[in-house]
Every structure is written in C-alpha cells, then in structure tokens.
C-alpha cells in the first residue's frame, strides 16, 4: 500500500533559514492583519478576558446583522435554485438513462475507420510491445513499425 507521507516532497531544508523565517513571519503578519480585520468580533472576546483593545470602531451591528441576513437569504435562494437545477438534471438523467446504452463498446472497425487505418493492421498494432509511429502534418497515421508481440 502506498504510504502517502512518503510521497510528499517537503524539501524545506533546501531553502535558506532566512527564507524560511521570512515566510513564517510574513504569514504570521498576514494572520495578524486578518485578526485586525476581524477586530469587531475579537474585541468582545478579549474584553471578557479583561484585555481591552482600543480601535476606531466602524462596525455597525445592525448593518452586520442586515448583511448576514441578506447573505443567508441570497445563499438560500441561490442554493435553492441550484437544488432545483440539480433535481432537474437528475430527472433528465433518469429519463435519458438508456440513451447511450446502445453505444457500449467501440467496434474495432469503427476505431480503424476513425484513425484511417486498416482493421487487420490495427489488430497487429494493438498486440505489439513497441510501436514507432510517424504522423503526417495533418495528424493522420503515415507509418507504423510494430515490434515484438506482447
């Protein structure tokens, strides 16, 4: 069984220590900026712990509640529409379940016809261990060398 952890290539050790420290610090600063953006939510919590964070509050509680309700309503509306759309797709899928059943196997002659090659040649190529193919400028098969049968 393939062990996932061995597949992950984390060669952070190849980067310089300065680069690693800068990455970590800049990311931390970024988190702090996110914290700053979320101050209206964070400050009531820190107040409970006795830490008073002073900042110029632009947070408008009624506006936020209004925004939240609007977002929820829009999301419900959009997700609701999507659900109806999904059900419609499901209905189409069930009604059309048998549409493609007739095409369930690619016929050898059809495949050869599509690629513009002879059926018996194609059979040989499909058994070969190695194929060397040369194509024309338009992409049609020009020359095939098959070697060692599989």
């Amino acid at each position: 069984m393939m062990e996932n952890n061995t597949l992950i290539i984390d060669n952070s050790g190849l980067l310089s220590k300065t680069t690693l420290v800068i990455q970590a610090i800049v990311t931390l600063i970024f988190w702090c900026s996110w914290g700053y953006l979320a101050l209206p939510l964070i400050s009531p919590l820190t107040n409970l712990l006795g830490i008073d964070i002073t900042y110029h509050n632009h947070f408008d509680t009624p506006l936020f509640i209004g925004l939240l309700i609007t977002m929820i309503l829009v999301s419900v509306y959009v997700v609701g529409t999507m659900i109806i759309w999904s059900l419609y797709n499901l209905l189409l899928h069930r009604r059309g379940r048998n549409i493609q059943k007739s095409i369930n196997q690619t016929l050898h002659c059809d495949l050869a016809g599509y690629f513009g090659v002879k059926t018996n040649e194609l059979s040989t190529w499909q058994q070969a261990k190695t194929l060397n193919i040369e194509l024309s400028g338009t992409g049609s098969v020009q020359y095939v060398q098959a070697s060692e049968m599989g």
Partner: protein
Amino acid sequence: MVMEVDFLNILDYMLMFAFYYPLLMAYIWMGGATHYFIRWESKQHGTFMTPPTLSSYPSVSLMVPCHNEGDNVEETIQALTEQNYPNIEVIAINDGSTDNTGEILDQLATRYPRLRVVHLIENQGKAMALRMGAMASPNEYLVCVDGDALLDPNATTWMIKHLLDSPNVGAVTGNPRIRTRSTLLGKIQVGEFSSIIGLIKRAQRVYGQIFTISGVIAAFRKSALQDVGYWSVDAITEDIDISWKLQMAKWEIRFEPNALCWILMPETLSGLWKQRLRWAQGGMEVVSKYFKHLFHWQQRRMWILVVEYFVSALWAYTIIALFIIWLVIQFMPETANNLVIHKIPGTTSVALVLTCLLQFALSLFIDARYERGIGKYYYWMVWFPLAYWLLNVFTTIVGIPKALFRDRKARATWVSPDRGIRRIK
C-alpha cells in the same frame, strides 16, 4: 453634478460586485460540497484504501503520455504496475522526447511485461499522444495519467466502478494531491487544491456539469471518446476541451475523490504563472469554440457553466477597472472626497474573514479523509484568498485576449513545466 452622482453609483455597484461575488461563490461551493460530502462521501464504508468490489474486472489500459519525462517516468510507471486491479496494461506514449525518456521506457518495457511503449517520431502534443494511445489500446476503458504523476494503487478500481455502473458516464476525474510542498507557493497550493478545486469539483458534480476533468488523472469510456472525436489536437488545454465535448454530447462526467493521484506542481512564481495562464487561456478558448452551439436548448445544462465563467471573467475585469479608477481619482480630490470608503475594521471585513476561515475549515475537514495531517496547512492558507484571487485576476486579463487571438489551427504542443523542488536522489 448629476454625472458625478451617477459615476459614484456605478462605482458603488462595482465595489459591491467586486466584494460580494467571491463571497457568494464561496457559499455556493461550500453548499454544494457539503451536500456532496453528506450525500456520498460520508456514507462510504472504509477509506480510499479499501476499494469497492466490482461486478466484473474488464481489461483497462493505463495511458501515460510523456514528453521529456526522463526524471519522473520510472516511478510513474512503477506506480501504475502496482495497481490493485487484475487486468491492466500500461501504454506509455513517448511524444518525441529530446531527453532519455524513450530509452528509459524501452528498458522499463523489458522489466514490466504489462508495459507497452508507443514512440511518436516527432513531438505532436499531449492530445495527439493520447489519441495514439487510444488507437493502440485494445480496451474499452482507458485511464490517463500524466508522466510525472503517481497513481494510488486503488485509483483504477474506484474510477472504473463508475464506468461499469452507469452506461451514461463517459469520463471520471480523480482527486489530484500535491506532492511538492517545500516552498510557500507549494504550501499555498495545497490549500488551494482543497478549498477551491476540491470544493468546486464536488459542488459542480451536485449542480450537474463539471467545468473540467483533471487532465492529470481521468478515466474514459472509449465509445464516448469515439462518439465525440477524441481529444482536440488544437486545444491548449485538452482536458477542458474533452470535458465540454463529452458533456455537450450528453455524456456524464463524474468526480471520484477516492481516486488519488499524487502530482508535482510549480513552486516558483514564473512556473505557477505559466501554468495558470495556460488554464485561463484554455478556458476561454473552449468557451469561445463552443459558444454558438451553447445557445441550443439541448445544451441548457451547460448554461450554468457558461454563466459562471463569464461572471468570473467580468469580475476579474471589474477589479482591474476599480484599480485604475482608484489611481485616476487620486488626482481628482473633489471626487475622492465624495467617495464612500468602506472603513476597516468593519462589517464587510468581518464577513470576509469569517467566510474564508469557514471555507478553509470545511475543505480541510473534507480532505482529512484522504490525507492525514493536512490540518497543519491551515496556517499557510491565510495567503490563499489574496494569492488565488489576484492570480485569477491577472491570468484572466492576459489569458482571454491570448485565447481569442491565438491561431486556432496551430497544433498545441508540450511545454515542460516547473515541477517544484525535487528530492535529492
């Protein structure tokens, strides 16, 4: 005066769109992914390591298109030969490599009896390599894996289950997991793959159509490919193109999160930029290629993808427009004074922070099923909204014109990507 008020109103709407659109999309993705998780993932017995028992085990061809993959292809092939699936053959397609990929593949073919090698004399691009692989395969079921990716031993079984159970399923996309996590960019991408790509795939699966399979790991029904004319050789992102072709022909695409595939991703800014620009360009190319066909009533299931795509593109241009306007009004003090600046910290900033934290937590909670210890990446995910949305803006701005003015007849060929900081052997 009236004109100025109108301008301010328009600006206000633009600001609202710029701010609320990502928030709304976050809730749509979270809603869809939660539904998917509750409906399917949480009901599964066992984990990705305990694959389901199939009604039969038909032969499967595992196809690996390679171009200059000398450093990676050996472990890729080895992982494929270790699949816990009884009837497999591996077809490696060496697409005109200029390094030692061809010789390595020939050597590996002597070691692994189930490996077959197709050499294309000249570099033809991934789509053509896949087409030749499909031609060389005698099997109805194809699993395509990139030449630098490692497939989990049970992935084939998980994906083939969908193709066996549902005749309408034309393709199944797996769950790419990032291996390269040395730099900050690598770590941010782990978060991105969880909180954006993973959530989007699940949500789109719930809502009906998937924008794209992951080209790095996908299984196909050959009759579905034959029906739509296989991969388009002119598409810069052949995975997006085949996804749209299949779905427009009424084939269903499934997402299988248990089908893990470990991938190498860029770990430099220039590597990441090139990759994402290609994705953005490919998306626009596909939408514009099929645009006129999408107006047909039969294609109504695709409309949701089209709407989402165009609104996202509009959002990217709105951000740039707002930035330009902000720069210009710095020279117009009177107008600048009339602007209502959203003060921070305030209502909107709290909404933004809460939404992002919720999105991170949900995505890592879902992904913990597939990777133990992924929670530690929560620390680095704080970068992700800025990194992802900014990258998205710039790649959209540059990628869309590139897609619209590219020579469509030109064959899309390979460019070897940045693959992160590799192990020292």
